[in-house]
């Protein structure tokens, strides 16, 4: 029966640096396997869409502009993604991966949609989304 059983702990702590990580002044790099934001490489993608099928929160949409020429646009809902990594597991050619550097995504805007792909493909896809002029005036 003792009083003050943690005395050695507090004595030691008084003379050592605190364990708190002073984020954002000090930043510790995440480990290698950390599951950060998606990374997509359309040049090895086969367009099988298994990643889309098994995503628990429907965060990925794959738009196939031209399968043979490997023109894909991946629409990624950053806010829906739960960073589970099932898409990475499903992908056979390993065209999709998760970054382990990019994980600080707090933002002041709501631009949560990220488009992956070659720039000209993305431009073509976005163009196809905008309605034709006569439809716009009818709104």
């Amino acid at each position, binding site marked *: 029966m003792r009083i003050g*059983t*943690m005395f050695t702990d507090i004595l030691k702590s008084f003379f050592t640096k605190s364990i708190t990580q002073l984020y954002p002044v000090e930043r510790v790099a995440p*480990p290698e*396997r*950390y*599951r950060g934001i998606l990374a997509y490489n359309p040049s090895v993608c086969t367009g099988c869409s298994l990643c889309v099928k098994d995503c*628990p929160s429907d965060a990925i949409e794959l738009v196939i502009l031209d399968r043979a020429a490997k023109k894909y646009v991946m629409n990624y809902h950053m806010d829906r993604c739960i960073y*589970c990594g*099932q898409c990475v*597991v499903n992908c056979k050619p390993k065209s999709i991966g998760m970054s382990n550097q990019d994980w600080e995504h707090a933002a002041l805007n709501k631009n949560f949609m990220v488009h992956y792909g070659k720039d000209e493909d993305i431009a073509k896809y976005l163009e196809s989304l905008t309605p034709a002029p006569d439809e716009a005036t009818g709104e």
Partner: protein
Amino acid sequence: MNTEQNLQTADLLLAPWKKETAQPETNRLDVSIAANQLRQAVSALHNARWGYLSAITGTDLGPAAGQMEALYHFCNGAAITTLKIQLPRTDSAVLPTIEDIIPPATFFERELHEMLGFKFKAAKSNERLFIPDDWPEDVFPLRQDFSIEQAKPVEGRQAVEVPEAGRVGDSTFVVPIGPQHPALKEPGHFEFTVDGEIVTAARMRLGYAHRGIEKAAESRNWIQNLYLFERVCGICSHTHALAYSLGVEKLAQVEVSPRAQAIRELVAGLERIHSHLLWLGVAAHEAGFDTLFMYSWRDRETVMNLLEQITGNRVNYSANVLGGVKCEIGPEQAKAIKEGLNYLEPRINHYLGVVTTDTMFLNRTRGIGTISCEEAEEFGLLGPTARASGMLRDVRVEAPYGAYKQFPVSGVTETNGDLEARCVVRLKELLVTCFAIRAIIDNLPTGPLTVRVPRKIPAGETISRVEAPRGELLYYIKSNGTEHPARVHIRTPSLCNWVSVLEKAVGRQLADVPMLIAGMDPCFSCNDRLITTVDAARGRKTWSWTQLREHGIEYYKR
């Protein structure tokens, strides 16, 4: 006696009432009985001390079949006997209550009543437990023909409000703890009627973190559900995913490689360490011993960093896939784990010393909330709360699953049954777990990490039991051969342990109540699994998953 003999004993005990029997798996026996003979059957098993009532599952077989099923699962070691009762899906789905024979059945019966509409004759109370007070009558969420339009909040029907305490001449009043209270890490509602400082009565409501997971599981495919179930609870997420994966793999009759099973056990062990250290900090904080809280959580960071290194995330590790694991344990990870354990083991021993010798902490834990072994059995307790009272109820020991046959853990029990014993049991379990993890790293079997599992799981039903840090976790999974499960029922350990809080709080001081609640390590997220309501500004609404998603998409398109 082994499992087969166990099942034969059960078969004999239930002989007078059984209509038909089936053996869906080697360790299970399904006995169909009539509703009016339920009590005799249950008494027969109870009096012969054949196992304990682990869960009551309710299933709706659909409007086409016109029947609902109630399954009473009794577990004895690795053997499971299920009493099956089929009743029509109308108002006449009446079952006799068994809560006088087996007290923990109260919560299970209320869940069945509120979710599926079974009526229980002579039940002690019809108070709502899970669903909110303004949920309409006769609308049962887990029925197959449930649609969201039915769930309109009933206007003018508020929760029964406890009146404010009178100020003169009124010495008893009700102290509410929750849904918002600094003592609770998650919402839950307890009402303690106090007279001065002594508690005279206790009531509770759950359901504040209910998210509709069991219902949501029916509209997702098997792989998506893995991640859904992982998020039932943040602290025991891996055990939920593990139970689900083991169940599905049993249904698909797929043999997972020993290496994957060993890695699963390793991650489960690390999760147990993090969960028990978290609990130690929380219990110390409830007692007012903030220093122990800070230090145990500091040491917990070691485990969290290890888990992040191995699996990629600190919480919701997603280490499991159907058929194996995602993460490899290479020499680098093994070295890191060993270093982490070398740091942790002396610290755990130090905390064991603090918890058993610090006079002031003992003043708050020794002799408080004592539950004897007989009471523990009667209340149907599970997990470390039961083991602290001397009852060895541990699925890893009684019915080893996965890699536990190759890397066994010894069961840890204490005899006193008070809060101190619960602290000691959890800390000693950690030491046992560290030993097991070291054994796994040194003898990791070779083999592939994953095995292919078909996308359409063959029809059937299975029961998967694993030992979560809080006790036995039971998953009942039923498949009808498609890509979506037909029914998944989860019975979490915290649900069984609530009775201990309610019974033991009476007669103790109000100051002991947070310690009692913390002592059973409640996990509210595990308890609540249905119903979402949104948006105070626009009035209360209950939305289905599709509606919520559509709303989210619309909202964020701006």
